[in-house]
């Protein structure tokens, strides 16, 4: 009885054979539809900031550094790979790639930044895209955006004067650590 049981256990093991891979020498490709590192296609991006304002991890930052240049910065270190940005991008400029081996000792390796040339609204002085103007509205319906955007600290709105310090702050954005008196 005891022996028979042990033989059965061994049989399970040997029928399964050896299942572990010789990883990392033998790669295991990710399946189709895998949510790996998001990749931005700068030719398609219109700078609408939909990804930045819907990122649950708040890890996509946007800043206008002058009236014609908008910077989009994706800091992968906090990314949860939920794929929300890719879902919402109206131009499908974001794809979730199959890259998942992202461990690095240099944060810059996994940071992506886009410099986007924008038009400037002659009336309010903010960036906008000339061609189509209702993308933000379309985004709203997808993500229930009934919140006040101004309250969001991390999405920088356009500023009239470019200050290098502010940009630096965005790049090295860290959580505030003290009680604001």
């Amino acid at each position: 009885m005891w022996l028979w049981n042990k033989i059965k256990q061994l049989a399970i093991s040997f029928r399964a054979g050896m299942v572990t891979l010789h990883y990392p020498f033998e790669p295991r490709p990710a399946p189709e539809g895998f949510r790996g590192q998001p990749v931005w296609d700068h030719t398609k991006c219109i700078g609408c900031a939909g990804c930045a304002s819907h990122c649950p991890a708040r890890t996509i930052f946007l800043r206008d550094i002058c009236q014609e240049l908008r910077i989009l910065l994706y800091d992968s270190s906090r990314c949860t790979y939920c794929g929300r940005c890719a879902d919402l991008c109206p131009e499908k400029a974001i794809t979730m790639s199959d890259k998942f081996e992202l461990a690095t000792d240099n944060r810059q390796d996994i940071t992506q930044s886009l410099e986007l040339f924008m038009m400037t609204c002659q009336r309010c002085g903010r960036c906008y895209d000339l061609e189509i103007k209702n993308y933000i509205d379309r985004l709203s319906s997808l993500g229930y955006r009934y919140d006040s955007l101004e309250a969001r600290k991390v999405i920088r709105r356009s500023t009239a004067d470019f200050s290098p310090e502010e940009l630096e702050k965005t790049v090295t954005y860290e959580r505030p650590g003290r009680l604001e008196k």
Partner: protein
Amino acid sequence: MKVTAVIINLLYFLALAPFLEGVMRKVTARIQSRQGPPLYQPYLDLLKLLGKENLNAAGHPVFRLAPLLAFASVLSAVALLPLAGQSSFLAHSSDLMTLIYFLTLSGFFILIGALASGNPFAGVGASREMMTIIMLEPVLAMTLILGVVRAGSLNLLAATGGVSSARGLSYFLMMAVYLVALQAFVSRQPFDIPEAEVEILEGPYIEYSGPNYALFRYTLNLKRMFYSWLFVAGFLGFWLPGSPVLNLAIQTVLILVLFVLISVVGATHPRFRMDQALKFYAVLVLLSLVAVGLGVRGW
């Protein structure tokens, strides 16, 4: 010339002991459907540990000395062995009792080291180890005493040869008892209680690291090899050829087979609790006494 035999003894054990651990790990891995580490992994582990900083976590000289002394005692025991059916150079100044002393001494130093570390887990581990030693050393002793009874001599060569000299009832009973006890001697499941990883985190060795730990690991490897060697030389000694080289080769193969067996049993059992194991050990001790009794009667 005879000193060379002692050196061969030591070299044989030192070189092969980690490899046997590698075999154990590989076999276990295969049963668990894994690739497992390469066979030479234990050598790398030892090298790695030896290259690390020697931390004295307890701040106590005993803590530092214990691994050295445990290693030295087990090496001394190994040096006495009549490897390959040849009496050791040290045979004239040692006998079976010396061997048992040295073995117990190494266990004792492991206990001392554990207690010196002051860690509560090490304490629990040491108490478990102590119980295991108290319950299982008699089995080892009885096995050798059976040989002594048969051969009428305390000489190691004679005693190990004596174990298998008459293959009667006592021989088979003792062999069965020893095989079960072997699982505990090499501390594999179901009897790896003193160093149960998920319960008491390797117990006696928890505070050890670096070279100190490497010495303990080596000590354990040597001890495990010794116990299986004893099985091969004792119970299967009659089967080994007279030529030393051939004898050694066959012994090595048999020890490997034994380790594969140990690994298979280890991989297919959960760990017993100390109280359950103690009942088991008590039966083993009793049976070994019976075997010696039968041996005395010549059965």
